[in-house]
């Protein structure tokens, strides 16, 4: 691990140099909100931001991604042959990703890079990406990362972690990928003596997180008892079953495969899907095992706070970014639901499993 100082006066120059070898992405202001976008050469990311409205998960897991192409034109020799769609997996870097969003990529990776099943589209995009994180010194009141297994200076999933020191950035190079990017950007002013400043800034930033959740009882709570708890109807009542929470969530990974044919050519697409949508679980018979709103809402929270916890033993499937809290149109708050789940005692459980 190396600590580098980057003079802000050289910031644009460094990024422009790196852009010769990497396609750069970063937060830019779009109307009233920041969004992660591809940066044009010479364009610098706007790092003076709070969490973006949507997470940058779409840089690796696009909302709509063509994965296969085919022709239905029988006069063509290759008609009805499925072919992998051409993709650009040349090196890319996300500059200014928040630690919460970077950690979220690691949680999503558990699904797309499982020991037995690999998603080639996600993995190739992931491997092509270098993650240049920006530590978070100005959290929102809805940020609860420190109690969700993350933190404003959390380095998991990052290749470089930068912090703002006013006149310059301090960059912690964490991986070989990070070193390669630093070399491409010409960042080479080593300042090992700044380690203490980094630690102090980390402590100060963590102290600014005012919102917390408790998750200590989730592992030991009986899954079926929790599933049958009496509070789910109350939790779910307001829910509109829209996809805002799942689409804005950096850790939600569900997708749907769709074939779309136009004239004689067709594509197979991978589109974001949402467990909030009734058709998410409809079988071809017409039967829907999650027919009610309560079942769908319960699924979302049980997946994040219980099934995932039990299956991977790496904590909850949430990094505390607070996006779903801020954007839910009816104010369903995962912190409140987590408190209900974590304090649940089976004696409260309803006998019926619903």
């Amino acid at each position, binding site marked *: 691990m190396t600590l580098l100082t980057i003079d802000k006066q050289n910031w644009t120059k460094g990024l422009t140099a790196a852009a010769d070898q990497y396609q750069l992405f970063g937060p830019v202001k779009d*109307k*009233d909100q920041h969004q992660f976008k591809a940066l044009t050469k010479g364009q610098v990311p706007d790092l003076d931001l*709070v969490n973006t*409205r*949507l997470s940058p998960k779409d840089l690796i897991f696009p*909302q*709509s991604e063509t994965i296969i192409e085919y022709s239905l034109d029988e006069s063509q020799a290759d008609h009805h042959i499925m072919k992998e769609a051409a993709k650009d997996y040349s090196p890319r870097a996300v500059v200014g990703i928040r630690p919460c969003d970077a950690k979220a990529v690691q949680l999503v990776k558990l699904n797309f890079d499982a020991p037995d099943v690999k998603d080639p589209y996600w993995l190739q995009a992931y491997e092509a990406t270098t993650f240049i994180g920006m530590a978070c010194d100005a959290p*929102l*009141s*809805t940020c609860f990362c420190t109690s969700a297994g993350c933190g404003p200076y959390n380095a998991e999933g990052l290749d470089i972690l930068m912090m703002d020191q006013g006149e310059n950035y301090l960059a912690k190079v964490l991986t070989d990928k990070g070193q390669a990017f630093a070399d491409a950007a010409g960042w080479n002013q080593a300042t090992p003596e700044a380690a203490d400043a980094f630690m102090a800034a980390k402590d100060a930033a963590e102290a600014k997180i005012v919102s917390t959740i408790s998750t200590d009882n989730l592992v030991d709570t009986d899954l079926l008892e929790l599933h049958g708890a009496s509070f789910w109807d*109350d939790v779910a*009542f*307001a829910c*509109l*079953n*829209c*996809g*805002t929470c799942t*689409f*804005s969530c950096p850790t939600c990974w569900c997708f*749907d495969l*769709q074939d*779309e044919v136009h004239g004689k050519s067709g594509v197979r*697409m991978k*589109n974001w899907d*949402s467990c909030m*949508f*009734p*058709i998410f679980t409809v079988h071809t018979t017409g039967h829907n095992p999650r027919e009610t709103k309560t079942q769908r809402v319960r699924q979302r929270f049980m997946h994040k706070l219980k099934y995932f916890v039990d299956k991977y033993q790496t904590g909850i499937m949430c990094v505390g970014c607070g996006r779903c*809290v*801020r*954007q839910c*149109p*009816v*104010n*369903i*708050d995962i*912190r*409140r639901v987590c408190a209900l789940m974590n304090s649940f005692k089976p004696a409260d459980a309803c006998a019926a499993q619903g």
Partner: protein
Amino acid sequence: MSEYTEKMRQIAGRLLKDCTVEMVIGFRKGTMPMMNEPCFVTAPEDADSLVWDSNCGINLANYLTNRKEKIAVFAKGCDSRNIVNHIVENKIQRDQLHIIGVPCTGMIDKRKIHGMVDGEILEVTETEETVKVRTADAETLLDKKEVLQNNCALCIHRNPVISDEMLADPVEEQTDIDRYADVRKIEEMGDEEKWQLFEDLLAPCIRCYACRNACPLCYCPTCFVDESKPQWVGKGQDPIDIRTFHFLRAYHCAGRCTDCGACQRACPVGIDMRLLTRKLEKDCQEQFGWEAGLSLDSRPALDVYQTNDPEAFIK
């Protein structure tokens, strides 16, 4: 605690205690500034969780669809008109409902307020005329009239059109409101300009369907965008599919929309899809003299045939 809140709790407690209804649908205090959460109460002692302020913009008629219980529901002017729609369209029966009318002076637009202050908003409090916004660094006092949701600023039915009891005396209705100035401006545009406007309007859409799902009119068991046999619309982010969704959804609401603003309020990316529904509302008014949800005794404009129809082809 507002006067409305206090009265609401009393009424809800009474209706549950004397078994007039099985459940009361209202709002409880949200965890975020300018947010309340729709909720139901079934026990008289829980009535104290109910609240009312200018953050109750979600349309509660949406929570009545196909319910079987005997329900008391708090209804602003727009909610009451959607309840009328629901009854006329058989989504709930009149005798299942105990409607508590809530005279309304408008709901505040959190997106507008976010745009007016710097920094994260930590607390918002209100009086009848003002809204006080607190951030870490400052307190800003705003005139409530200036920060109303656009549909509330244009509202001409603030008082419920149907109720079993009223929470308070009716408020004064707004008059001399030009509801369609922006729609007329679009009508006057050339094709290209119009197209550009729609493209820009819908470009941020992420197809979460919050607009559709917040809308009390959108109760189809399977929405046309979710049909797979046949599949009318692609499910990706193709702009053509996104536009198809918004335009068709708006048409499904023609002659039924009360401009409650729930769609725009729910949208996480701030799209004003009311531009589409208000054009249809304007057409219904101009061509059929029709305003949705005002009476239990008439069918929606596009649901009836009348011999005095102004269209020549139909005669």
